[in-house]
């Protein structure tokens, strides 16, 4: 890339803390599905970018699963060259408006940021916030920064599943000059970005814009096409030179306690799909998919999906939203920011409560949830202190809705159709080698179908690594990079 933009002046912002981001007031936002963090304006973004000291080691770049040149784009933002900064990000990441919102930066680039010294009261650079600003800036100014597409190689690539891993692989492969077709089982593209992540965390318009960007680059999207059912993987393998499987972790887990099939009991996937993908919060006038009028709801689990479910529930105006989790706050797997938002919005946390039974209201629907109170004992295999029951302490909460958000497994729709695709016998995840190639040579896989369930950015990172390997496979027949250093590029960072 040739950025001829002027060198930014070194006017550092010496503030110890991140420029705060304005948010919708919790009292107001629980009445709408609008976004909660409002984003930086130009001044705030520039100010925050200038906190970057452009340190020598650039640990943030290594901390980013897709290796964005973070200091470089921050410098450009500091110089108010927003278009140049976007161009810089888009060298590595096609979806800044999405990543700026849903990446767990506090565990990645921002965690390793040289500025990040809590002991000295100093916060990291607000990298995610500036990234999001750029994504939004592009949208507001109708800037389409379409990366250059290499001359056609004549090779055809199929991407199965249009979630974060699939979209990233599609973007990379089309830029490398291959003809890319993305197959999606549902009627909208985006996978979990559409059906899972709520509107108030990732507005669907942003997602659709990013998808349109891919279309502009020549990616073909085929909706309503569940590969494995509509067409066999073998047939796809014949029609295309290489296939990337990114079908996600779309099989919800249940607890296996009595009462789980009562009316009013949902998997988080169903609850979020009804509300997000199907727009059920607009029922009956803007959507035909019903969502019940909820009075009292319990969400079981404490990961990001549980927070999304609880916060979505809150916006349906119930009397109370409980969160039920069998461990303590320390073990909650959700992002700190999500936990904070849920608390701000009045979600009532019942930690160290393990669900025993969902109680029938006498009419076939859930009427209450019975929980065993727990305390923390010795650490278990995962290193977390194991919750143990406190004898005789059982509590019952009256509820009319329960959402089970304890995780999900790999979606079996494709793999069930193709036994030759080797899978982990226990988890059902697709097994891959060091370059994300499956047991079928022209089939690669990445994202949750491989990890079993991780974050959006990890899935995108895998989409990127797989795209590099597939490109080499198409051009040379060997997916490995002969010049790669041990542990260097060409090896999936998250599988080592």
């Amino acid at each position, binding site marked *: 890339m040739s950025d001829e933009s002027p060198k930014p002046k070194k006017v550092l912002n010496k503030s110890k803390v991140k420029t705060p981001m304005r948010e919708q007031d919790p009292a107001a936002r629980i009445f709408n599905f609008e976004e909660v963090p409002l984003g930086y304006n130009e001044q705030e973004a520039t100010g925050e970018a200038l906190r970057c000291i452009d340190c020598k080691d650039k640990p943030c770049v290594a901390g980013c699963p897709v290796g964005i040149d973070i200091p470089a784009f921050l410098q450009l933002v500091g110089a108010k060259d927003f278009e140049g900064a976007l161009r810089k990000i888009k060298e590595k990441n096609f979806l800044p408006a999405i990543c700026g919102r849903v990446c767990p930066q506090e565990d990645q680039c921002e965690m390793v940021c040289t500025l990040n010294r809590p002991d000295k009261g100093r916060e990291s650079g607000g990298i995610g916030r500036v990234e999001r600003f750029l994504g939004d800036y592009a949208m507001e100014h109708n800037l389409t920064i379409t990366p250059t597409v290499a001359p056609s190689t004549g090779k055809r690539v199929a991407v199965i599943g249009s979630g974060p891993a699939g979209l990233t692989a599609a973007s990379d492969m089309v830029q490398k000059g291959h003809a890319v077709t993305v197959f999606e089982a549902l009627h909208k593209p985006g996978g979990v970005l559409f059906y899972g992540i709520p509107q108030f965390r990732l507005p669907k318009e942003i997602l659709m814009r990013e998808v349109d960007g891919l279309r502009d680059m020549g990616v073909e999207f085929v909706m309503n096409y569940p590969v494995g059912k*509509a*067409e*066999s993987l073998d047939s796809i393998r014949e029609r295309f030179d290489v296939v990337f499987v990114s079908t996600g972790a779309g099989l919800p887990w249940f607890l296996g306690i009595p009462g789980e099939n009562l009316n009013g009991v949902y998997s988080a*996937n169903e609850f979020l799909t009804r509300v997000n993908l199907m727009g059920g919060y607009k*029922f009956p006038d803007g959507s035909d998919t019903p969502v019940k009028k909820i009075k009292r709801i319990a969400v079981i689990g404490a990961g990001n999906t549980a927070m999304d479910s609880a916060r979505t529930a809150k916006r349906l105006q119930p009397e109370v939203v409980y969160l039920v989790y069998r461990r303590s706050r320390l073990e909650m797997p959700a992002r700190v920011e999500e936990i904070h938002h849920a608390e701000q919005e009045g979600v009532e946390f019942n930690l160290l409560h393990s669900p025993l039974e969902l109680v029938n209201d006498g009419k076939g629907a859930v009427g209450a949830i019975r929980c065993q109170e727990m305390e923390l004992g010795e650490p278990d295999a995962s290193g977390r202190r194991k919750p143990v029951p406190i004898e005789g302490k059982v509590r019952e909460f009256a509820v009319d809705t329960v959402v089970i958000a304890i995780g999900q497994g790999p979606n079996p729709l494709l793999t069930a159709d193709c036994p030759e695709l080797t899978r982990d016998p226990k988890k059902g995840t697709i097994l891959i080698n060091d370059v994300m190639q499956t047991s079928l040579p022209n089939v690669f896989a990445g994202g949750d179908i491989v990890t079993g369930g991780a974050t959006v950015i990890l899935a995108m990172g895998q989409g990127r690594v797989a795209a590099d390997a597939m490109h080499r496979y198409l051009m040379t027949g060997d997916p490995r990079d002969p010049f790669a250093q041990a542990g260097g590029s060409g090896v999936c960072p998250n599988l080592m």
Partner: protein
Amino acid sequence: MGNKIVRVQELAPRTRLFEIEAPHIAQRGKAGQFVILRVNDEGERVPLTLASRDPGKGTITLVFQEVGKTTEMLGRLQVGQEIHDLAGPLGKPTEIPTGKTVVCVGGGIGNAVVWPQVQALKEAGNRCIAILGARTKELLILEDEIRALADETIITTDDGSYGRKGMVTHALTDLIEGGEKVDEVITIGPVVMMKFVCRATQPFGIPTQASLNPLMVDGTGMCGACRVTVGGKTRFACVEGPEFDGHQVDFDELITRLAYYQPEERASLDSYHRCRLEAAADRLQNP
């Protein structure tokens, strides 16, 4: 990929047959499988079991009854229009034995699915008896199509307006007790009917497959709305079914689950009717 409607046929009051262009579903679909469709961008995802298909022509046939807002809107579509979204074939196909005597018991709109089942059973060299039930004569559908394929066809109507008066279960029991050696029964129709068909075959130890019709959202195993209890275990009808061993199915739970959204479905339909009335009144006033 547009899914154009190429033929519309009214089979009975409020019951329509659509033949739709869908080459890959026509190619891959089998008896017992279903599709999911939407009628517009605000529409719900509705599962419909495949009636027949023509791989040569690249079309599939769906039969539906107008019972709610979505099916009413669907019923208004004409030849040449397209189905907004159509995905499939989903679910597992009916398990088709060979060289057996199989009785297919259908009721109401379920008879549309008996049709491809009888066809598949005959192609696999089975003796096939169809028992088709309807509330009254004018609601009986696809009799000629099924009669042309089955070795024997028995009709029952609740009111006795056609065929034998009474329930399909009586016809089935009489058939078995009359000495017909029945190896297997496949049933599709209203849940209560399927429950009693399964209850009727149980004493005779005749394996009975029931094609279930729970509520679904995505239909691809993602949400679990369609979960049913079979043999004490939770199963997802969309990916593990929709057909299960009828003697193991908890039909009462299925009936309860199917009723959960009835108030919302009614409200949705009422609001749709109101909108149409207002639009009609508006057209009259401002022609």
